[in-house]
């Protein structure tokens, strides 16, 4: 008699999902799946609107990485206009994208995941969250909150507001940066840098305590994809694509984002609203690849800023070839925060960033275009086709988290097999399965908390899949 265990909703992730765990006749875990239970349909309802509206509309796909959607969208629109975006606008877009990386990574690391390590996977679930952290470790909580706050303040200083700023526009950005805003950002920068360095030092030092998670939280060979700059350096806004394998060997390099469909296919499964992208050449599901902080550090040749390059060298010690465990994405996020703070300082040091030439003006001159950038969770593509008047005929979105769908499914199965059986279903163990998902920091953009009448349901299924019994925990 097999059983199905449902974790619903998966909590402390940015979106809504559930996990089902299938137990075999022997009471051992046979399989596990990660289901995304929400769908909002942006691709269809953008059709018929002017492409100029798309940056503002598509930013509403996600409140955590709205800047990434705004930028990918604006970049697709730049290409429809066939314009040369002014340098200051390019630099400001990079800066805002990096600020978002800081706030989003800080949220993932401090607010959502650190309660598992600081308070314990098995600690009281009612306090195992950011408010519990604030009571148990007020200084750590304050540092995390202030780091995220600085990232948000940079976005606000440059783009006008923190969430959905409506600032990146086709051809550039809506406003130049003022000298006063630059000073405000710089005033908070030393503290952000200090927090980034200190947190990285502390977390890297706890590696010995996390060996078991590193072994089973998504630890398997796979491909990785990320944007890189012309010399293979980290680049989050203006780069081209690189694919590497589990040894770190480059499979494809400097691929134009507009050609992504020649490299990436998507499969649909009946049990999830999230599609399953795969590397076309290796087929489905063999073409499993990962994106996001782990992939970016595995793909790049170097970071390109002094402290982050040092930190990257330390990170590389975690693997031979590519670093394979998704648990190390937490570490990768801290390296990227450090990089982002350093790079923001470099960008602000260029006097050209205050230029008031921030937007090129043109009429629609192409019918199809792709815009891409690195969102906090991985490469994001907006692919648009418009008619002669610039009304949208087709929108195709390939979202960062979706590209980790195969890997997240592999991960929940790996963790469930390691920790669980019919005899061992304690809450703390189930929380570890969720923690494996948290390591990916999924941003299930079209997502929500669906209703879960029962906290966790163990359903006993008969040979024909019929429900024999159900129990709530």
């Amino acid at each position, binding site marked *: 008699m097999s059983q199905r265990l449902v974790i619903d909703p998966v909590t402390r992730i940015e979106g809504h999902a559930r996990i089902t765990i299938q137990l075999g006749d022997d009471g051992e875990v046979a399989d596990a799946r990660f289901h995304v239970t929400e769908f909002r349909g942006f691709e269809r309802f953008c059709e018929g609107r002017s492409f100029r509206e798309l940056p503002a509309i598509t930013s509403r796909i996600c409140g955590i990485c709205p800047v990434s959607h705004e930028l990918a969208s604006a970049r697709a629109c730049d290409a429809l206009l066939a314009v040369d975006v002014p340098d200051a606008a390019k630099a400001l877009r990079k800066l805002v994208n990096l600020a978002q990386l800081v706030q989003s990574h800080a949220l993932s690391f401090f607010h959502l995941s650190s309660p598992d390590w600081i308070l314990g996977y098995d600690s009281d679930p009612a306090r195992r969250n950011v408010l519990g952290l604030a009571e148990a470790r007020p200084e750590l909580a304050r540092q995390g909150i202030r780091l995220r706050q600085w990232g948000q303040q940079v976005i606000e200083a440059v783009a006008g507001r923190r969430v959905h700023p409506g600032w990146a526009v086709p051809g550039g950005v809506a406003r130049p940066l003022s000298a006063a805003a630059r000073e405000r950002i710089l005033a908070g920068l030393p503290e952000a840098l200090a927090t980034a360095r200190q947190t990285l030092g502390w977390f890297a030092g706890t590696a010995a305590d996390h060996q078991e998670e590193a072994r089973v939280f998504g630890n398997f060979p796979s491909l990785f994809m990320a944007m890189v700059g012309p010399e293979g350096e980290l680049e989050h806004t203006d780069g081209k694509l690189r694919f590497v394998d589990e040894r770190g060997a480059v499979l494809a390099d400097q691929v134009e984002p507009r050609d992504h469909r020649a490299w990436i296919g998507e499969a649909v499964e009946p049990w999830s609203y999230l*599609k399953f992208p795969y590397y076309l050449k290796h087929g489905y599901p063999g073409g499993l690849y990962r994106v996001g902080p782990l992939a970016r550090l595995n793909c790049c040749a170097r970071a390109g800023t002094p402290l982050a390059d040092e930190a990257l060298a330390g990170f590389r010690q975690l693997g031979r070839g590519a670093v394979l465990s998704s648990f190390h994405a937490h570490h990768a996020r801290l390296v990227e925060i450090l990089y982002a703070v350093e790079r923001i300082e470099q960008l602000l040091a260029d006097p050209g960033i205050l230029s008031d030439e921030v937007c090129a003006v043109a009429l629609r001159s192409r019918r199809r275009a792709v815009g891409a950038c690195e969102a906090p969770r991985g490469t994001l593509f907006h692919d648009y086709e418009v008619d002669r008047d610039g009304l949208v005929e087709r929108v195709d979105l390939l979202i960062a988290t979706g590209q980790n769908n195969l890997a997240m499914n592999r991960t929940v199965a790996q963790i469930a097999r390691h920790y669980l059986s019919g005899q061992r279903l304690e809450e703390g163990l189930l929380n570890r399965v969720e923690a494996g998902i948290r390591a990916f920091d999924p941003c299930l953009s079209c997502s929500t908390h669906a*209703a879960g009448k029962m906290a966790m349901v163990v359903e006993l299924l008969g040979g024909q899949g019929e429900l024999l019994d159900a129990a709530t925990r």
Partner: protein
Amino acid sequence: MGALSPAGRARVATVWLGGCSGCHMSLLDLDERLLELAPRLDLVYSPLVDAKLFPEDVEVALVEGAVCSEAHVELARRVRARSRLVVALGDCAVTGNVSALRNALGGALPVLERAYLDPGNLQPQLPAAPGLLPRLLDRVLPLHQLVPVDLFLPGCPPHADAIHAVLLDVLAGRRPALQGKVRFG
């Protein structure tokens, strides 16, 4: 003053229906004010905490997002039944906003077909797993069309200061007053 935990803290919930989580980000944009609030309230249900069931006896529930699926209907009704004060947090909950743009297409099928029956996909099919994937409603609803709402806090997202004001009023046992603190969009 209403629902209190044994520790004397107000029982607060935040709920995520069909939205982008931007309203929850605005809540986190309270920044260090979160640390001041932490000892005064228990977050008994929220995407930020590990509760799986919406609990009984909640003082205030902040609800982000529009009602888009059968699962949202069920959750929104439970939230209403178990909360003293239900706040529609943000334009999606207040008006439907971006989440309701698909209503103009006349049902859920066109949006699903566009995404999943694309011939470029491998195994094109409409996802359907009864009991696992909630069915989408044909018409997306603002929260008040399904359940009575006590307070509307518009904005896409609402400003963190407005959310803060509501929480302070609730903690003080006052009925929140929002004149001059809100915006749409």
